[in-house]
C-alpha cells in the first residue's frame, strides 16, 4: 500500500468536492481502492458516504477533484452507463432485478447469449448461471422466479448479475441490514471470493461488527471531510466511534431550557408496541413539554415507531394512550383528529402541496377564516400567515414569495410545514428525520422551534439517525437497534459517543474499560 503502487490502484478518487446549494456535502475527500481490497466506508448520516458513492457511480457529478478507474481518468460529468461499462457496480437495497423473471433470465438481461440463428440460447444462459453461482460458492435455484426467493438470495442474484455483466469493482450499501447471521456469513464468503479474484469491494455500513469481520481497510468521513484511512486491524471499536463523532462542534447549537416536569401525568403512554418486520415491544412515555428522542440508524425501526404514532403503519399490536385514554391509530385521519402533527423528511408525505406557494400552504387548513363575503381577503391572509410564519423564523419575503414550494430549499420547506401544523395548535408533535437535507442555519432554526413548541407544554417525539440533532434537542433519549429499545439516556449521558455506542452495539466488554466500575457512562 505504498505510493509506488499508484498505477495499480483500481479506483483513485482525489480531492472530491460537492456542494448542494449552500451545503458542502464533500470537502476534498480522497478514496483509494486497491485490487482485492475490502474497503469499508464509515460515517454518520450526512457525513457524505452516499454522496461519494453516487459520484463514483456517475449518478452525481463532482464539483472538483479527480477520479481514475483502473488508471482511466473519468471526466467531470460521466453518465452512469459509462461507469457501469467500466465494471463499477453498486448493489443497493433495491436490487435492479425483475421479480417476475427467473434467475437465469435476470442474469441474462442485457447479456443474452444467442444461438447461431440469433434466437435466445436458453441452454447457454442456464449453463452460465450455474457456473457463476458455482464460482462464488452458493446454491441458488436458478429456474425459480426472483420474487419467490428470500431477500438474502435475491441479493446474491444481484451480485451474480453484476458478475455476468463484467464486474470489476463492487459497491455494497448496508448489505446485511435485512440478513440474519447465517445469510450474512454466506455473503461475506462471497465477498472474500471476489476479493481473492482481485475485485475491490467498497462496503458502506453502520454495522461495526460487519466491518471488523470483513474489511481490511477503513475510511471514515465526518461532515463531508475525510477523517482517516487505515487498515481495519489498527483500530478498536471505540477508536472508530470517536473518529466518526469527533469532538463536539457543529456550528450553532440550541440552548435547552427545561420545559417539562414530572409532576403531571404522562401525556403519551406507549405499551408493548410491535409491528412485524419493523420493531418489537416498544414501551415508553412522554410528558407534556418533554422532547423524547428515538435515536437509531435508518433500519433500526425508529422511523417506523414515529410513523405508527401517526397512523401510517399497519398490523401494529400493543396500545397507545394519549391524555389518559386509549387511542386507535390505524389511519392518519385519527391521528390528525387527536391533534397530532407530523413532520418528516419527505415534505410531500408530511402534507406539503409542492405546487402551491408557501402562503397558500400555511393557510390551507384555515383559509376560510380569511374570507369576507365568500372571497379570500388577500390582505388579511397575508397578515395572518406572516404572523404564524414568524414563529418558525420564516422571513416574510419568503412567505409571500410567489413560487411553488417545490422550489424552496429543504430547510424552508420544513419551516412552511411546521408553520402549517403550528396553526392547528398540535397536542403532540411527531418528527422523523426533520432536518434531513436541510442547511445548517435552517436546522438550528428548526431545532429552536421544536424547543419553543415544547415550552408550550406540548409533548414531542423526535426520531432521528442524526446524533447531533438528538443531542441538541432532546431531554431524554431512547436508543433503538434492530427494532428494539436498547438504552435510555438522560442528563449527562446525552452525548454523541454514548448514543453512537448504543446505536452500533459496540459494547464488547473486552473493548471497554470497566476497571473503574463505571461501565459505559459519560466519556
Amino acid at each position, binding site marked *: 500500500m505504498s505510493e509506488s503502487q499508484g498505477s495499480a490502484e483500481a479506483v483513485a478518487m482525489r480531492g472530491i468536492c460537492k456542494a448542494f446549494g449552500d451545503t458542502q456535502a464533500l470537502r476534498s475527500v480522497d478514496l483509494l481502492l486497491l485490487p482485492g481490497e475490502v474497503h469499508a466506508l464509515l460515517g454518520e448520516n450526512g457525513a457524505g458516504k452516499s454522496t461519494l458513492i453516487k459520484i463514483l457511480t456517475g449518478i452525481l457529478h463532482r464539483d472538483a477533484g479527480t477520479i481514475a478507474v483502473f488508471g482511466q481518468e473519468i471526466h467531470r460529468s460521466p453518465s452512469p452507463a459509462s461507469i457501469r461499462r467500466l465494471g463499477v457496480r453498486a448493489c443497493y437495497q433495491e436490487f435492479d432485478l425483475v421479480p417476475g423473471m427467473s434467475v437465469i433470465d435476470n442474469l441474462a438481461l442485457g447479456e443474452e447469449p444467442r444461438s447461431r440463428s440469433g434466437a435466445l440460447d436458453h441452454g447457454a444462459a442456464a449453463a452460465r448461471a450455474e457456473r457463476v453461482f458455482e464460482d462464488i460458492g452458493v446454491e441458488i435455484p436458478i429456474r425459480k422466479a426472483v420474487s419467490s426467493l428470500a431477500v438474502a438470495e435475491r441479493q446474491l442474484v444481484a451480485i451474480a448479475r453484476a458478475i455476468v455483466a463484467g464486474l470489476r469493482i463492487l459497491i455494497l450499501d448496508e448489505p446485511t441490514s435485512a440478513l440474519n447471521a447465517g445469510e450474512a456469513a454466506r455473503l461475506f464468503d462471497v465477498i472474500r471470493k471476489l476479493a481473492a479474484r482481485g475485485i475491490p469491494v467498497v462496503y458502506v455500513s453502520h454495522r461495526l461488527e460487519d466491518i471488523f469481520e470483513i474489511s481490511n481497510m477503513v475510511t471514515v468521513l465526518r461532515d463531508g471531510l475525510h477523517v482517516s484511512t487505515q487498515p481495519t486491524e489498527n483500530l478498536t471499536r471505540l477508536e472508530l466511534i470517536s473518529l466518526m463523532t469527533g469532538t463536539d462542534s457543529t456550528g450553532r447549537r440550541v440552548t435547552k431550557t427545561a420545559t417539562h416536569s414530572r409532576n403531571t401525568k404522562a401525556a403519551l403512554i406507549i405499551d408493548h408496541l410491535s409491528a412485524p418486520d419493523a420493531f418489537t415491544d416498544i414501551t415508553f412515555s412522554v410528558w407534556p413539554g418533554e422532547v423524547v428522542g428515538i435515536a437509531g440508524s435508518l433500519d433500526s425501526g425508529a422511523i417506523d415507531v414515529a410513523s405508527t404514532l401517526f397512523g401510517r403503519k399497519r398490523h401494529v399490536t400493543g396500545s397507545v394512550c394519549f391524555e389518559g385514554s386509549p387511542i386507535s391509530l390505524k389511519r*392518519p385521519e385519527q391521528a390528525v383528529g387527536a391533534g397530532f402533527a407530523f413532520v418528516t423528511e419527505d415534505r410531500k408525505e408530511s402534507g406539503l402541496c409542492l405546487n*402551491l406557494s408557501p402562503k*397558500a400552504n400555511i393557510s*390551507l387548513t384555515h383559509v376560510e377564516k380569511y374570507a369576507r363575503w365568500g372571497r*379570500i381577503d388577500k390582505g388579511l391572509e397575508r397578515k395572518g400567515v406572516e404572523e404564524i410564519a414568524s414563529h418558525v423564523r420564516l422571513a416574510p419575503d419568503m412567505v409571500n414569495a*410567489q413560487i411553488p*414550494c417545490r422550489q424552496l430549499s429543504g430547510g424552508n420547506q420544513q419551516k412552511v410545514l411546521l408553520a402549517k401544523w403550528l396553526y392547528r395548535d398540535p397536542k403532540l408533535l411527531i418528527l422523523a428525520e426533520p432536518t434531513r437535507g436541510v442547511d445548517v442555519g435552517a436546522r438550528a432554526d428548526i431545532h429552536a422551534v421544536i424547543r419553543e413548541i415544547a415550552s408550550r407544554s406540548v409533548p414531542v417525539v423526535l426520531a432521528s439517525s442524526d446524533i447531533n440533532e438528538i443531542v441538541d434537542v432532546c431531554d431524554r433519549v431512547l436508543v433503538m437497534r434492530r427494532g428494539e429499545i436498547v438504552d435510555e439516556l438522560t442528563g449527562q449521558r446525552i452525548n454523541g459517543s454514548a448514543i453512537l455506542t448504543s446505536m452500533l452495539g459496540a459494547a464488547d466488554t473486552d473493548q471497554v474499560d470497566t476497571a473503574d466500575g463505571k461501565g459505559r457512562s459519560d466519556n
Partner: protein
Amino acid sequence: MLFVLVVLGASIASANSVFISTTNLTNLLDQVVVYALLAIGELYVIVAGDIDLSNASVVAASGTSYAAMAEHHGLVLAGVVALSIGIGIGVLNGVITVYGRIPSFITTLGTLTAVEGFVLLATNGSPIYNVPGNFVHLGTGKWLTIPISVWIVLVCAVIAWYVLAQRPFGRHLYAVGGNRMAAEVSGISVARVRITNFTIAGFLAALGGIIFASRIGSGTPTMGANYELGAIAAVVIGGGDLMGGQGGVTGTLIGVGILGVIANGLNILGVSAFWQEIAVGVIIVAAVILGRMTSGGERPPV
C-alpha cells in the same frame, strides 16, 4: 401561450385576409363556444387531479333532450331538463369515482360510452327536427353584436376565474390536485370537492349541449362527438397539468382559441379535412412542448 395564439392568427391572416373579417371571426367564436364550456368544466376537474371523458356525451344527451322537449313543453322547461341531465351525470361520475375508489378516467369512459348509447336508443339514431320557431335564438342571436352564446361563455369563464382564484373552494381544488393526502389532512373534504367538480363539468357540458342544439336548430345524437379530447387538450395547452394542481381559466381559453384558430384557419386556407386533423395533432403537441420550455419563472396557481 398567448404568444402562440397571436402568431398562429397572424400567420393565417397574412395568408388569407378573410380570416380576420368580422363574419369569419364571429363564425370562429360560434364554433368554439361549446368547446369553451367543456374546457372550463374540464378545468375544474383536472385541477383537482381527475379527468372527465364523458362531457361529449353529455352534450349529446342534453342537446337532444332540449330539442325533443322544446316543442311541447317550452324552451325553459326543456332547458331545465337538459341541465338536470348534465348535473345528474356529473354527480354519477363523482360518486362512482370517489366511493367506488376507481380512477376517474375509467368512470367517465364508462359514462361516455353508456350515455352515448342511451342517446342513440332514445332518438333511435336519428336527429330531432321538431323545434319551435324561437329555438335558434339562443344559439344564433346576438347582443351588442356579440353572439349570446359567447356572452354565456364569458360569464361562465369569469365565474370560474373568480372561484379558482378568489374563493377558498378554489384553494381546496389546487390542494387536492397537488397533494390529496395533504389536503385531506388539512381538513378539506376531498370527496366533496371532487364530486362538486364533476357536477360542475356536467352542468357546463349540458349548457354546451343546449347552445349547440340551438345553433344547428335540431338535436342529433352524435353532436359533440370527440369533443372531450379537444376540451382536455385546451386545458393542458393553457398550462394545466393532467396530474392535477395546475391550470387556469385564461390559459384554458387561450387553449380553446388556439384549437379554434387552427380549425377555422385551415378551413379558410382550403386545407383538406384530413390534413387538418394532422395539423391539429401536431400543433397541440408543439404548443404544449413550447409552453413547458418557456415556463421558466414558474408561478404557483395560488
